[in-house]
């Protein structure tokens, strides 16, 4: 009994550590974004802002075209997510259902690609995008972002698709669907939690991505948020409160996206369709 209680306590402690690890930086940024630079530098340090100000947020919108960055980020993240999830769903379905020869090898290669260091692809990617004339356009980021998230999204979707009884698709195909129709009308709705999980992964990956965005889309007008935020840094200054405010502006949309999707990620959707 004592052992059990200790175990429980340890699990709770581990959970608290993980949660604190995630939340502390975010909270710190949030508090910093409401502080003046003077308060930030004061010793002893304050955690809660003593004289909260929204001046930093005003500066965020005045100093740089952050709405433009936000818009660029939204377009790149949404389109790359759609592209990624569509391709991943088709790939996962083919790997799960079509008895492809060499499916195992394809899976291994997918895993290997997922582990490939991004930096090693930068130079060839830059050259390709330059030759295609796509540098400083959304597409220079949409395509690579979609491709980068594809392996992990495919693997996520494979695990969900495997749980769908084959006879549901068979029934749909007898009812008049093509194979793609069965995927669209039956498999995708039933694996909505998986599809949204893959979507969130792809969206967050694209939203956070810095290296490609800096290299392939450096012009101010086409910058995404992660790169745009670096513009707040002066040559000799580092305005922490303003940068924190900009970070909050970047974090809020993704929180909203996750909150919306999370509600859709409901389990038990497949119960009752087949015996059980």
């Amino acid at each position, binding site marked *: 009994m004592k052992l059990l209680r200790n175990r429980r306590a340890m699990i709770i402690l581990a959970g608290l550590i993980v949660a604190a690890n995630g939340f502390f930086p975010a909270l710190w940024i949030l508090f910093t974004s409401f502080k003046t630079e003077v308060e930030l530098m004061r010793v002893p340090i304050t955690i809660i802002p003593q004289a909260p100000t929204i001046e930093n947020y005003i500066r965020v919108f005045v100093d740089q075209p952050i709405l433009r960055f936000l818009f660029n980020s939204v377009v790149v993240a949404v389109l790359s997510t759609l592209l990624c999830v569509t391709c991943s769903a088709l790939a996962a379905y083919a790997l799960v259902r079509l008895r492809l020869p060499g499916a195992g090898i394809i899976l291994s290669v997918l895993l290997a690609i997922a582990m490939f260091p991004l930096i090693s692809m930068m130079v060839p990617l830059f050259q390709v995008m330059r030759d295609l004339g796509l540098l400083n356009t959304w597409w220079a980021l949409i395509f690579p972002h979609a491709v980068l998230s594809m392996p992990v999204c495919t693997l996520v979707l494979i695990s969900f698709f495997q749980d769908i009884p084959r006879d549901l698709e*068979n029934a749909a195909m007898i*009812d008049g669907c093509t194979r793609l129709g069965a995927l669209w009308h039956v498999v995708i709705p039933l694996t909505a939690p998986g599809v949204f999980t893959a979507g969130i992964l792809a969206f967050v990956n694209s939203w956070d991505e810095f290296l490609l965005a800096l290299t392939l889309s450096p012009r101010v007008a086409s910058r995404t948020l992660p790169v745009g935020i670096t513009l707040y840094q002066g040559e000799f200054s580092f305005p922490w409160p303003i940068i924190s405010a900009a970070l909050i502006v970047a974090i809020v949309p993704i929180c909203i996206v996750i909150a919306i999707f999370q509600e859709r990620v409901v389990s038990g959707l497949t119960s*009752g369709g087949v*015996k059980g």
Partner: protein
Amino acid sequence: MAGIEIAKVVKAYGSVPVIHGIDLSVRDGEFVVLVGPSGCGKSTLLRMIAGLESVTGGTIRIGDRVVNDLPPRDRDIAMVFQDYALYPHRTVAENVGFGLRMRGADAMTIEKKVKEAAEILQITHLLDRKPGQLSGGQRQRVAMGRAIVRDPKVFLFDEPLSNLDAQLRAEMRVEIKKLHQRFGTTIIYVTHDQVEAMTLADRIAILKAGHVEQFATPDEVYRRPRSTFVARFIGSPSMNIVPARIAPDATTITLDGDAAVPAPASFARARGRDVLLGLRAEHLGLAGPDGVPARTVIVEPLGSDTLALMQIGRVEMTGRFPPAAPLRAGGDVTLRLDLEQAHLFDPETGLAIV
């Protein structure tokens, strides 16, 4: 409506053949049951007819069209699955109407036809529910609704009742039979339950290891089984099949080296041979002192009648007796074996000696 012609159909997975050249001719409007033990290929054959499995060799014809290479949606069939295969994210009405919607029917037609089908299957009150809120029997009705609403040429049933309890299974059996009488559509029905096969079928195809062992009416497969396999598979309890030897003059038959019993004239066809003697339970009866001596091993009262396992010399046979028969385990009785009704099989091939 349409008949189905299956000619020399072969199915192999890689180099492993599972169906070895099956020929079946199903008449328009006929109710054919494919029956056999697990792994005999009956479901595979059904799925080939549905287009869910490719055909390795031979041809399948529905009506006057060869359908080998047609996708399932173009075969004008409907199928009811063992696990119901209802779309869990759709309501009963949407499930039933899905096929019509996929075929581009307008909303009015869909609503009308769904309502009609629901009335026939008594599921009108369930139309707004999701499959997860239904019982097994109700789900199976919905699955049947989805099949009948499209008015297809052929209905395919893949062990539709095997997930239901005994009482519900009996009810649904009647329901399916009624549907067939009402619509007269060709039905191919797969089951491993010989009672379903006997009660539902116009003709039964008994499959064994990828080939058709016998294809005939229920009466025929019961009365004239082509092999010991069919004889054992059809009928409950199973036919008693015991080794025996017919005397050279065919006047007597000896059960496994024991006492000789007078043989009917028809046994002359196997005079002097070792045979397998097949005798159904109902062809054993209690006799007077001149009967065959036997010992009662086990008594199973069923209410309407009583089954009893009898030891006759070295062999055991199950007999069906009236409920009031004076039987008790361990008791000695004398039996009458109605050998006029008996079957003779070749011990080597298992085929009937006719």
